């Protein structure tokens, strides 16, 4: 029985795998880059345990499928998905070798070749080969993973992925792009350990699969904690860009369901790091024994990462917002500074652009700013010049200047009730309507709203097409929730999408940014281009703390534990001896704060 099957398999294999000669790679120009500085600090010490927390115990250890995108995902991904073929250096932005040592982008801007690192090993000792990347695509395509997001992602992004040789991979994207390496990169999935037959989600729910990264999940106690252990002989430990990264021997992540409780745990010394996520806490609760004695440090690290879209969206399909003057009046009546000062401890910065935090943001743009006089001029032009019995403006046709603001987050109510009162004072009636979060989001996509909160996290590069291209006006369920689009802006967006000349792309986006601001259908709210965190004295960081492009601590693990400092700290704490209060709070290695404050000053003057 075995022989015929083997023969069949052999036959199949010859049919399915194209002979290497089909690809003529002699003309391919290979690229690599070992010239950028390492991401971490070469002085970093290995060893020790990092204690941190997560809000909930992971529902699954899978990377795809139901419940895979939970709070634990960033940890899982840090040691698996983040090991893609190439990556952008988080400080220099250049492509650097990651799982592949060399790469090549063809003229069609969508065909890519990769030479894989032959040293790469799964932690079970098996080599990471090209088939493991093909396997990832097959996984994403499989209906058995029960993950429509990845099914769709695969369908939209990949034409084909071919294992030409064990260490030679070809990827063809679905569309051309000026950054195909970002668009079409893949991470490996262990082909020898994962199959996508029926029952995939259940089978791999709690399975600990081989990983290419430096940490393996080694201990877990359901509902309590998980521990990642560092592989002492990890294949990548001496690779140029990984030196100085991934330092602690153990990362212990315990479940603490509430960030305030976690703060108490930190103060007791049971967590090494703590990210502070509210302005109030940052302003009012940072003085405690450990910080006063210099046993722990507080830092606000300014980072350079796009802030995405966060602000109020007006629906241009609704008649009240079809009038540009009315929209501008709304812009001028939004008193960001007051809200920031009175409700948010002046902790945040005003976002101005549709592309805040990227080089595509037009630096010339100034926020509208709170200006009731200009607002009134625009309201007059929009036909609202008379106040009705209730003090709300009415236009010539007797329509009140009234609309509904729908939102899905109760936390926003604090800000919106204040905005509402200001609007009311100047004759505009804004009704507030809290919806269940999912409904609010869906109503946005279906343009079933008048004004709503639009919040989208950003990738490294803006996506103007999905937000402002007129093709999306014809359909619903897309990110063009404002119903905007014009021929001229479409052409600008195309310059960005397909142009290979960076300066022209930037020029086009700056122009688009100006037009979008003038169209005034999006009121940008705040940006928080920083990470606020606390850490005990024994946790060490490079002089620059973290690379420039970082969103959360798990992204780039450059910190380390200093055992000597840990002993010294515990001696000092036992003796009640102060190490001297650390006066430094703000860290701005990338001059983000300087830039923002200069821009604010310019806006204030203008």
């Amino acid at each position: 029985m075995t022989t015929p099957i083997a023969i069949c398999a052999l036959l199949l294999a010859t049919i399915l795998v194209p002979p290497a000669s089909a690809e003529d790679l002699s003309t391919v120009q290979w690229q690599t880059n070992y010239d950028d500085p390492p991401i971490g600090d070469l002085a970093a010490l290995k060893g020790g345990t990092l204690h941190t927390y997560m809000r909930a115990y992971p529902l699954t250890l899978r990377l795809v499928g139901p419940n895979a995108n939970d709070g634990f995902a960033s940890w899982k991904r840090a040691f698996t998905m983040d090991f893609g073929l190439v990556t952008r250096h988080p400080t220099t932005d250049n492509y650097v070798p990651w799982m592949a040592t060399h790469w090549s982008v063809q003229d069609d801007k969508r065909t890519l070749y990769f030479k894989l690192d032959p040293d790469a090993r799964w932690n079970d000792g098996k080599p990471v080969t090209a088939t493991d990347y093909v396997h990832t695509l097959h996984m994403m395509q499989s209906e058995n993973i029960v993950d429509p997001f990845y099914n769709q992602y695969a369908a939209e992004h990949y034409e084909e992925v071919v294992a030409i040789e064990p260490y030679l991979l070809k990827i063809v994207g679905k569309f051309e792009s000026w950054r195909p390496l970002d668009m079409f990169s893949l991470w490996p999935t262990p082909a020898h350990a994962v199959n996508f037959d029926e029952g995939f989600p259940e089978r791999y729910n709690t399975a600990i699969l081989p990983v290419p990264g430096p940490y393996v999940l080694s201990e877990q106690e359901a509902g309590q904690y998980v521990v990642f252990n560092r592989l002492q002989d990890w294949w990548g430990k001496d690779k140029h860009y990984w030196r100085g990264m991934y330092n602690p021997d153990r990362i212990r992540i315990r479940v603490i369901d509430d960030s305030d409780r976690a703060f108490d745990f930190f103060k007791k010394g049971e967590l090494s790091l703590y990210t502070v996520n509210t302005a109030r806490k940052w302003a009012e609760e940072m003085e405690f024994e450990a910080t006063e004695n210099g046993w722990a440090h507080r830092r606000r690290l300014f980072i350079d990462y796009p802030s995405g879209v966060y602000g109020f969206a007006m629906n241009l399909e609704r008649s009240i917002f079809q009038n540009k003057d009315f929209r501008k009046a709304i812009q001028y009546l939004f008193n960001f500074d007051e809200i920031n000062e009175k409700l948010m401890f002046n902790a945040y910065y005003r976002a101005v652009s549709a592309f805040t935090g990227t080089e595509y943001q037009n630096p010339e743009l100034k926020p509208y700013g709170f200006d009731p006089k200009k607002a009134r001029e625009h309201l007059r032009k929009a036909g609202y010049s008379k106040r009705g019995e209730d003090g709300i403006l009415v236009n010539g046709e007797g329509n009140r200047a009234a609309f509904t603001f729908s939102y899905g987050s109760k936390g926003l109510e604090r800000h919106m009730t204040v905005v509402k009162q200001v609007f009311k004072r100047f004759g505009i009636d804004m009704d507030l309507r809290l919806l269940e979060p999912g409904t609010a989001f869906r109503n946005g996509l279906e343009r079933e709203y008048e004004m709503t909160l639009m919040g989208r996290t950003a990738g490294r590069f803006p996506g103007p097409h999905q937000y402002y291209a007129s093709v999306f006006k014809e359909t619903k369920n897309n990110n063009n929730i404002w119903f905007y689009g014009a021929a001229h802006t479409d052409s600008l967006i195309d310059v960005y999408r397909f142009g290979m000349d960076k300066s022209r792309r930037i020029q086009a986006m700056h122009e688009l940014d100006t037009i979008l601001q003038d169209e005034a259908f999006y009121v940008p709210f705040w940006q928080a281009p920083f990470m606020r965190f606390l850490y005990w004295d024994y946790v060490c960081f490079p002089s620059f703390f973290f690379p420039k492009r970082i969103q959360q601590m798990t992204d780039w693990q450059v910190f380390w534990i200093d055992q000597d400092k840990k002993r010294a700290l515990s001696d000092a704490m036992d003796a009640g001896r102060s190490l001297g209060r650390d006066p430094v709070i703000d860290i701005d290695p990338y001059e983000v704060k300087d830039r923002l404050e200069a821009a604010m000053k310019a806006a204030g003057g203008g």
Partner: protein
Amino acid sequence: MRIDPITRKRLRRFRRLKRGYYSFVILTTLTTLSLFSDYIANRRAIVVSYQDALYFPTFKFHDMATFGQQDEYGFDDVEADYAALQQAFREDGSDNWVLMPLVPFDPYEPDFDYDHPPPNPPDTRHWFGTDSQGRDVFARLLYGFRISIFFAVSLVVVGEVIGTMVGSMQGFLGGRFDMFSQRFIEVWSTLPFLYVVILLATFFKPSFILLLIIMGLFEWIRMTYYMRTEIYREKTKEYCLAARSFGASRQRLIFRHLLPNCMTPLVTITPFAIVGAISSLTALDYLGYGLPAPTPSWGEMIDQAMASSNRDKIWLSVAPFTAISVTLLLVTLIGEAVREAFDPKQYAHYT
């Protein structure tokens, strides 16, 4: 009005039950007072005498131009600032005057005239402090009370009217109608009330009336149980048979004979139903699916007090918790007294 002797006796007994009676007096007074909330806590003046004309701005918008005011942007069509007006009139020595409410703050407008971001603790300006949006806690408590109590009473009335109707019909008609309607009620009562509210809130804009309707859809059920059994029992009693044998119409039978004799559960349940209704509205507001922001509401106040960032802002929790506890206590005491006053056992002589 003719009050039959039994009822009179019950009322007398109720008055004698001091605890319940005084609770009733207090609650009625508070409720009546709350009707005049707009004259107690408001940014708008009660009366303005300006250039020999009287203005009553409580329920009417007057712009600054009316009183010759201007704001910092040179606008005169925004709402008049009555507190500033009062100040100005005092200083200029004219015959103009302004009568401001006891508490010159409404439950909506934030007061940002503090160095520290809100919430700010109680002081002479804001007796109960300000909430996390800088609004006066006392004003919100007061208006919140009015909304809670009137919502609860309306809801209970709606529920009892429908519940009594359905319950009496079940009891009186019996048979197939009873069987089918009872099955319907069983199914209906298993609907998850909260989810229905959240679901409907996505289609309709929540308002006082809408919430009343939605909650009314569920409120009547409990009443039917009592009325059904009461009527079932009463209709077989001799007086009923006698009335029937006299040829009393069905209508007369129900309204003249049966219902008056079935009132006891209705009356005794009412206070507790009100407690339930206040709690439900508070719970809904707490979750954010009650009356839309910025309607003053106790649930919303509790939500603020419970927020982790306000853990140490004790005044935020003291005010609404005390208000709710006191109100619920008063209603419960009334309920207890009513039940005691209506207790038929008083008449029963067991030998």
